[in-house]
């Protein structure tokens, strides 16, 4: 098995606010992440696909193909967007790294036909990331 990883960057804004909580509770739980006009990050996404190289091409999947999937599913949907308001899949969720990474997994998994999606890691800053993989897969 070979694991290939492609990186992608996108920039987006978000804010943390749970309408079921009072203004004070939102402030207490989410701190400055709840500032009403939002704030932005440069996100870095790492997508890892596992598979056996095709004997003819030597590839698990064509990187161009993966790049196009990422462009269509992630960049076009999330880059330079306000995640709370402009990304349908995040509606009703707090757009934390944990929730975004799950949305990204669910967008990519059905699109990757050669090899299989193994791991998605999303950095919100260089010091903070969330990772998503199938239960039982090694999270290394």
């Amino acid at each position, binding site marked *: 098995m070979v694991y290939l990883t492609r990186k992608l960057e996108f920039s987006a804004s978000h804010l943390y606010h749970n309408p079921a909580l009072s203004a004070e509770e939102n402030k207490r739980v989410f701190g400055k992440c709840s500032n009403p006009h939002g704030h932005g990050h440069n996100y870095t996404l790492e997508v890892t696909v596992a598979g056996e190289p095709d004997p003819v091409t030597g590839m698990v999947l064509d990187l161009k193909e993966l790049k196009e999937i990422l462009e269509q599913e992630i960049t076009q949907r999330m880059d330079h967007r306000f995640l709370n308001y402009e990304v349908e899949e995040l509606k009703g969720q707090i757009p934390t790294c944990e929730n975004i990474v*799950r949305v990204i*997994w669910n967008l990519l998994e059905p699109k990757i036909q050669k090899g299989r999606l193994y791991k998605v890691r999303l950095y919100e800053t260089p*010091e*903070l990331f*969330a*990772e*998503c993989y199938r239960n039982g897969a090694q*999270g290394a």
Partner: protein
Amino acid sequence: MNDGLKIELGRRYRFSASHRLHSDRLSEEENRRVYGKCNNPHGHGHNYVVEVRVSGNVDPATGMIANLADLDGFVDEEVTEPFDHTLLNEDVAAFRENVPTTENLCKEIYKRLKHFPKAKLERVRVEETSNNAFEYAGEELQDCQTVQQGDHGQ
């Protein structure tokens, strides 16, 4: 959410400390041979990076596995505050007995963070320099690994 997916949260912290690699079980010559310049008598320092990974259910009310303020506070109290700007050999009790290699440091940090009450500790990675990294995921996991590139602390 039971969709067969596992989510982990990773957070990186930094502290600076000095250490000296020296084992009381070895002779002076053996210490010099084994540890090289890491055995120099007055120690030397590193900027350590500690990567902490936790897992758990993502709370639908907050979208979080654990509130970062809780994780940061816990790591600060257990690791950053007691380790930063110290001589590990003298100032951290565990390293009066054990050589403060980054292997042992990694295990000590894991031990201290294992009791984080808000999420499950998955693994600890310690980067001693940008060329040396060590990971520990507890004894029960098969995939715990030590990754080392280059020599100790050089």
